[in-house]
């Protein structure tokens, strides 16, 4: 299992630059927002938590098709299926590798981007915490979407169409938590709900992803 994880991480860092790409995309979204809505500091302060969440979500989405596509093309996915590792474990490891190479850097970079959007001081901790809790769910849900579309040519657009509606609950609770934190309100309820969603998806969704992958490799 750890061999697979290390292999995926190495591939993400060394080959093809999926690693920095998500971060760069996140930065560009954050830079584009003030051009769209105007540079007024007080307005940016209000929308900062939401923009950061949507930016993180889109950056995550961008890298989803890489989870299985390369392995599908060179045939290593077939090897993984025949390996003694259960499919559910393979899928979970893939999601974990995706989170480590995409989600975690986004979480770590988010305070910096919060600075660009004039996020109030008390908002940083809830923002980072909400992203830390929420991005694993994004990776796991995204892995399910990637598994659904793995065999398809031009699956990228379809992948977004399938995955984005599934992201709605995570986005709602995550952004709500970041927003409440930025306004100095209590963040307990959205935090618990977000944690619940993340734990639930991590526990259950790999079974669906594995089932889907088995169908696709039949």
């Amino acid at each position, binding site marked *: 299992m750890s061999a697979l994880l290390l292999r995926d991480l190495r591939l993400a860092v060394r080959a093809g630059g999926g690693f920095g790409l998500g971060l760069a995309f996140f930065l560009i979204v954050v830079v584009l927002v003030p051009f769209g809505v105007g540079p007024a500091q007080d307005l940016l302060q209000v929308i900062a938590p939401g923009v950061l969440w949507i930016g993180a979500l889109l950056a995550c989405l961008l890298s989803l098709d890489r989870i299985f596509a390369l392995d599908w093309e060179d045939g290593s996915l077939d090897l993984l299926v025949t390996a003694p590792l259960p499919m559910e474990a393979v899928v979970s490891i893939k999601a974990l590798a995706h989170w480590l190479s995409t989600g975690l850097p986004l979480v770590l970079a988010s305070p910096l981007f919060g600075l660009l959007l004039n996020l109030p001081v008390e908002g940083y901790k809830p923002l980072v915490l909400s992203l830390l809790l929420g991005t694993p769910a994004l990776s796991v849900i995204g892995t399910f979407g990637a598994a659904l579309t793995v*065999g*398809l040519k031009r699956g990228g657009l379809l992948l977004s*169409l*399938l995955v984005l*509606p599934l992201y709605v609950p995570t986005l*709602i609770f995550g952004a709500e938590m970041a927003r409440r934190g930025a306004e100095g309100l209590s963040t307990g309820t*959205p935090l618990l*709900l977000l944690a619940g969603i993340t734990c639930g998806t991590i526990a259950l969704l790999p079974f669906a992803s594995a089932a889907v992958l088995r169908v696709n490799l*039949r």
Partner: protein
Amino acid sequence: MNLNALWEYANPKKFIQTTDRVLPWVSGLAVVALVVGLVWGFFFTPEDYRQGSTVKIIYLHVPSALMAINIWLMMLVTSLIWIVRRHHVSALAARAAAPIGAVMTVIALITGAIWGQPMWGTWWAWDPRLTSFLILFLFYVGYMALWEAIENDDTAADLTSILCLVGSVFALLSRYAVNFWNQGLHQGASLSLDKEENVADVFYHPLLVCIAGFVLLFIALVLLRTRTEIRARRMRALLARERMG
């Protein structure tokens, strides 16, 4: 009645034979119920003392909204049947139902907007019910797109039914998440089986007829579309066999 006899209709041939006989009746009844319900509702009910004649949009809005949710539930059930028992008719019925459900969602959203404009002063508000319907519509679109994208029929049936199961959980989650996110303008449910208080009887009876009409219309359309799908598949198989021979 022996419940096992129900599975007989999973045989495509038997399904076609039976629906041959049933379809005219269902479609006929749907037309009758819709005409009676809508004419009754539009022309023979009083205007609401506060909402005026706009209240009459209820005869399209409520049934279509009801169907939009129930069609997804029906797809969930048929997807489960496909996963468990692998009856092709079941998978095809789910596929046939999806576009109808999407159209029902759109009808509910549009009639709602037309109703909302005079009542709330706005076409659209990010109200929980409105928002969750928009999300439901996205689920329908994604489901249909996945069916279209995959060439192998059995693979497509498998993947879409799993998507339907996962999607149902997330649609439900979104429904409550959206509730948490914003309190809205839309009133609570005005029809239910376990409540004493419903819409006033003058509106209630034609509304029930309309709902029956929508349900029958949906059944007729699903049967028709499933038959078309079965025949199209049979035709493809025949063509393939001819090319081989």
